[in-house]
C-alpha cells in the first residue's frame, strides 16, 4: 500500500497549493470596512497579502480613546492637514506640549484617584526637552507608487474610521484594513457606499 501513498501525494500537493492561492487571493478584496480584524500574528499578519492587523509598540503609548472620547478632540486637531493635503499631517511635539505643559506627568490626587506620575508624559517631556521629534512607528502604509490624497477622500465624506477603523476606541492602534488594491477598488466602484463611487482608472492612483 506504500504505492497508494506515493501516488496520492502528488495531487494532494496540488490541492494544497490551489487552496493556499485562493485563500490569500480573496482575503484582501473580501475585507469590508465593517469587518473588524483584531487578530495579530507573530509578525502581525492576518494574511499573506497584507500586514493587516499589525499593531506595533509606539515610542509613547498614546491613548487615542482618552483624547478623542474623554476629551472630545477632533481628529483634525492633530492630523491637521488631512482635509487640505494629500498628507494627513502629524502633530508637532509642540502641539502636544501646548496642552501638556499645563497637564504635566505629575497628577495630583483627584477625588478618589490617588496622585500618580504618568510615565508616558515623562517620555514626552524628555523628547521636548531634548528637542527631539518623536519617532512614531508607522502603521498605515500604502506603497510609494500609490498616490493617496487624503483631502479628496475626507472632503468626499469618507470618514477616517472607514479606512483607519474605530481609532477612538483603540488603546493601541492597529492596521484596520488590508489596504491592498482590491480593497481600494472595492470602494471606488461603489460597493461600499454608492455615494463614494470614484474613478477606478489605474492612473488615478498610480503615477
Amino acid at each position: 500500500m506504500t504505492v497508494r501513498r506515493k501516488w496520492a501525494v502528488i495531487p494532494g500537493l496540488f490541492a494544497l497549493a490551489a487552496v493556499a492561492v485562493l485563500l490569500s487571493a480573496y482575503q484582501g478584496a473580501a475585507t469590508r470596512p465593517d469587518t473588524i480584524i483584531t487578530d495579530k500574528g507573530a509578525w502581525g499578519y492576518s494574511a499573506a497579502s497584507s500586514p493587516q492587523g499589525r499593531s506595533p509598540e509606539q515610542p509613547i503609548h498614546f491613548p487615542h480613546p482618552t483624547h478623542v472620547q474623554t476629551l472630545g478632540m477632533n481628529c483634525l486637531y492633530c492630523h491637521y492637514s488631512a482635509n487640505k493635503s494629500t498628507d494627513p499631517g502629524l502633530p508637532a511635539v509642540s502641539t502636544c506640549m501646548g496642552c501638556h505643559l499645563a497637564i504635566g506627568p505629575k497628577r495630583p490626587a483627584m477625588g478618589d484617584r490617588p496622585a500618580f506620575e504618568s510615565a508616558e508624559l515623562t517620555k514626552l517631556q524628555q523628547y521636548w526637552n531634548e528637542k527631539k521629534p518623536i519617532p512614531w512607528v508607522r502603521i498605515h502604509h500604502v506603497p510609494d507608487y500609490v498616490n493617496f490624497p487624503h483631502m479628496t477622500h475626507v472632503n468626499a465624506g469618507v470618514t477616517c474610521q472607514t479606512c483607519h477603523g474605530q481609532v477612538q476606541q483603540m488603546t493601541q492602534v492597529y492596521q484596520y484594513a488590508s489596504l491592498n488594491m482590491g480593497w481600494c477598488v472595492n470602494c471606488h466602484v461603489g460597493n461600499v457606499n454608492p455615494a463614494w463611487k470614484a474613478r477606478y482608472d489605474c492612473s488615478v492612483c498610480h503615477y
Partner: protein
Amino acid sequence: MQGIVGVFSDLDSTVDAIESLKKMRAGDITVYSPAPRHEIEHVIAKGPSPVRRFTLIGGLLGATFGYWIPIWVSDYWPLVVGGKPVPSWVPYTIISFELMVLIGSLATVLGLFVNSRFPRITMTVGYDPRFSDGEFGVWVECPPDRQREVSGTLQKFGAAEVRGEA
C-alpha cells in the same frame, strides 16, 4: 475471483484458444499481449473505446472556457488598449483554441485512466511478468466447476503453462 491463466508462446495459437474459449462461453476472458495485436482485438471483438467521449466533452469545455474567461475579464475591468474594442473575440480565439487542446487532451488521459482503471495499485491475479516480455496470456475467469475443461482447452491449443489462480 478465481480463474485459469494460460501462457502461450505464439500468436496464432493464442488466437485459436481465445476463439474456442469464447465458443465455450467459459467465462470472462482477458488477453495479455506484449504488444497490441489487431488479430487479438479482432477475435476479442469488443466495441469502440468510450475514451473518445471524454475527449469530445473535454475539448468543448476547454473551448468554451477559453472564450469565456477573456471576455469576462475584459468586461470586469474595461480598459481600452490601442483603441480596440474592450472585448474583442478575434484574439480570444487563440486562447480558446489552446484551452481546447489542453483540457481536451487532459480529459482524454482521464478517459484512459477511468476506462482502464488506472492507476491500479496492486497486480490482480492472473498476470505474469512474461506477458510484458515475449509471451501471450489468456486469463479466463470461471467458477471452479468449469476450470478443468477450460484448462483442458488451453492445453489443447498448446499453452506453455496453465495454472489456476484465486
